[in-house]
């Protein structure tokens, strides 16, 4: 059976890189005695696959990975009752680090696509510590524009895109906070900083040099219906 686990990552844990988060959760599974399915072959590994990687320095309330289990019983205890979504969540959080918290677990239907393949969008909240740009009017200006052509670097080349096609929502909720819904996934993935840079450029203001000028939180990852990735599965 395949489960989808949603977790949040806050505080100093935003400095833990994607690969290390994967290794971290493999250890969580062993600490919690979860009956995980391993791959065959010489170096067996847990059948675990992560959704869209999160950049170092970003916090998140919407991180996901899928994991395949042999059973819902704890390892080595065949008489124990099956885990429910709630008891499994508790079990995982008992052995978790401060500031990494499992918030939701769902059971995926047979044949469900991998978490990464399901990702189509991402919601972010950005808090700006930089005051040189008027965020409210910058967002309005972006929303009113017919096209916003920018050059986007891909792995192989630089191509021109219309950023309007990939920004689904943009909204300044006050003068230091923006909410954005961006295209995400293995095809085109728009980073919040790309949109921020564009907003600065459109207004002729130079983008702040400090790496910590913006506090970016990923609120959730979304499927093709622009619903939370958890909605692909059901409570058990």
């Amino acid at each position: 059976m395949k489960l989808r686990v949603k977790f949040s990552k806050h505080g100093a844990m935003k400095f833990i890189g994607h690969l290390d988060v994967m290794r971290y959760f493999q250890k969580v599974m062993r600490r919690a005695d979860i009956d995980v399915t391993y791959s065959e072959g010489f170096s067996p590994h847990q059948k675990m696959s992560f959704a869209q990687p999160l950049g170092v320095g970003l916090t998140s309330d919407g991180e996901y990975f899928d994991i395949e289990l042999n059973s819902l019983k704890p390892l080595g205890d065949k008489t124990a009752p099956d885990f429910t979504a709630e008891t499994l969540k508790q079990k995982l959080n008992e052995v978790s680090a401060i500031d990494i918290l499992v918030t939701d677990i769902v059971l995926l239907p047979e044949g469900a696509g991998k978490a990464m393949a399901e990702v189509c969008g991402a919601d972010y909240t950005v808090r700006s510590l930089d005051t040189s740009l008027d965020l409210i009017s910058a967002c309005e200006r972006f929303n009113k524009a017919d096209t916003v052509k920018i050059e986007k670097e891909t792995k192989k080349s630089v191509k021109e895109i219309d950023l309007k096609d990939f920004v689904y929502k943009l909204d300044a909720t006050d003068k230091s906070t923006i909410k954005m819904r961006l295209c995400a996934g293995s095809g085109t993935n728009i980073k919040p900083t790309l949109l921020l840079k564009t907003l600065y450029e459109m207004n002729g203001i130079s983008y702040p040099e400090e790496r910590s000028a913006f506090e970016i939180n990923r609120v959730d990852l979304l499927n093709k219906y622009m619903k939370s990735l958890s909605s692909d599965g059901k409570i058990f």
Partner: protein
Amino acid sequence: MRKTALSDEILLSVEKPERYIGNEINAVIKDKNEVDIRFAMCFPDVYEIGMSHLGIQILYDMFNKRPDTWCERVYSPWTDLDKIMREKKIPLFALESQDPVKDFDFLGITLQYEMCFTNVLQVIDLSGIPLHASDRKEGDTIVIGGGPVSFNPEPVAAFFDLFYIGEGEMVYDSLLDLYKKMRKEGKSRSEFIHEAGKLPGIYAPSLYEVSYNEEGTVKSFKPLFDDVPATVKKQLCIDLDKVTYPEKPLVPFIRVTQDRAVLEVMRGCIRGCRFCQAGQIYKPLRERSTGFLKDRARAILDSTGVDEITLSSLSTSDYTGLKEIIEFLIENYSDKYINISLPSLRIDAFSLDVMSKVQDVKKGSLTFAPEAGSQRMRNVINKGLSVDDIMKGSSLAFEGGWNKVKLYFMLGLPTETDDDVRAIADLANDVAALYFDIVPKEDRKGIRVMVTSSASFFIPKPFTPFQWAPMNSSEEFLRKAHLLNEHFRDELNHKSLKFQYHENDLSLLEGLMARGDRRLSKLIETAYNNGALYDSWSDCFDRSIWDRSIEECNVDVDFYTTRERKTDELFPWDFIDCGVRKDFLRSEYEKALKAEVTPNCREKCSGCGAASFGGGVCFEAKG
């Protein structure tokens, strides 16, 4: 949410910010207002190296079991952060609380290799503690050293208030109790250091005075006070089942050098190799019981979730319960796919059988450490490994499907001739030839056997029979390496042979520090001030800084390295009693010069002196 000592801006601009944020699984968080003693435990190297060290995990666990003490960790900031901390005057901090080290009662620094000395100064300096112990005032953090390099602490004696000689489990509780008591009584810092210096195993450099002979050797080494002991006795646990062993070791987020659980099966070694310092200073061999180890293995694997466990010791094949422990791990942890790693195994039928069960045969190579090429040379160093052993082990390995073999050697051993050097290549060639004899052509699957030999340069260490021996000069080392390299090319099977050797700039400095005295502290400080840091990292090490500093301080390097010591010379480290007597080491040196071997501790007791500890292999029934 936890605070961080460094701002987001800094953390986002340095390589691997994970090194500085703490919060690892099993990290211990206490309320600093609820404890009496704050101890910062430091490994003076980068996080990934320091986190791989078992000793700190043991002491961290032991100290934190005391309700009155909070022990935290400190590592050397990498060069990028080092620069920022100096520019912005950010004091060095401990990982758990992220508080400055200078707020702590103790800064403990483990000395695992000589080339960490400039990093020791970096840690003290960045903490804002005066570099010289003599400049520290009331309220300054007490700096205490430990670890194997403390067996000759003299080159860094000026920077430490105290050293702990031996195994930390023994006296640290008394030391912390004494500190707490004296502080409550309102006693001064220097009064505490004086009292601490009377505890067994504790050495307070400021309580001793050294004088030198005209030719530069030590004339006398005496305590300045009547109540301070003239010799400091190494501390050692006889019953390793009775001392604490961490059940919840720290689990780093980033991949560290030893990214696995460590089960220390025993301490000490029966094998008396004459070049090996660890073999002497951890004598006698003491085993942990299989029951104790099974309990700990279970607790550690359950609390960490790591996927690999290593059975650690100086020579794990000599552990009598090895088979039982391995079977236990295979039986109980196959459902979690735990790998078992077995360093320092002798290659024989049993170990190959085990390895084929627990490791991926296709990937691995087998490692032998003959250390020398000729049998004569191996007798000199008392390496109880014959050509037969190597050939038998290799043929079993080739039959078992391995086709990569690594051989470790040393160049520059005492009495070494050019013939001995060339014998290294001949031995590697014989191993490769054996493959062609044993594995029929149709079974080779187009894969060429590869025998990789690597040579390091021999450095005489204190408390070994070779502490009197001259070290080769840099020129002599290089000449031998080149000679050997050429001889490798002339071998029949040269296409299956690889030879590599390590640059020798570091060896020279390591040799200098290993048998150095108090006068070298000036050189270390000068080199540090001239910019030397992370000397054990080849991409950081800058020979020219050291050359310049050696010149500035007028140090005669040859005096410390290439000079053969006289039989009765008083060594800077002779005030330490490591259990093994100096006259025993001398007789071993003389036997070495005659290429005579000494049996191992299980074959026959040689009366080295370690029996004075009253336990371990010295009191096992001899087979």
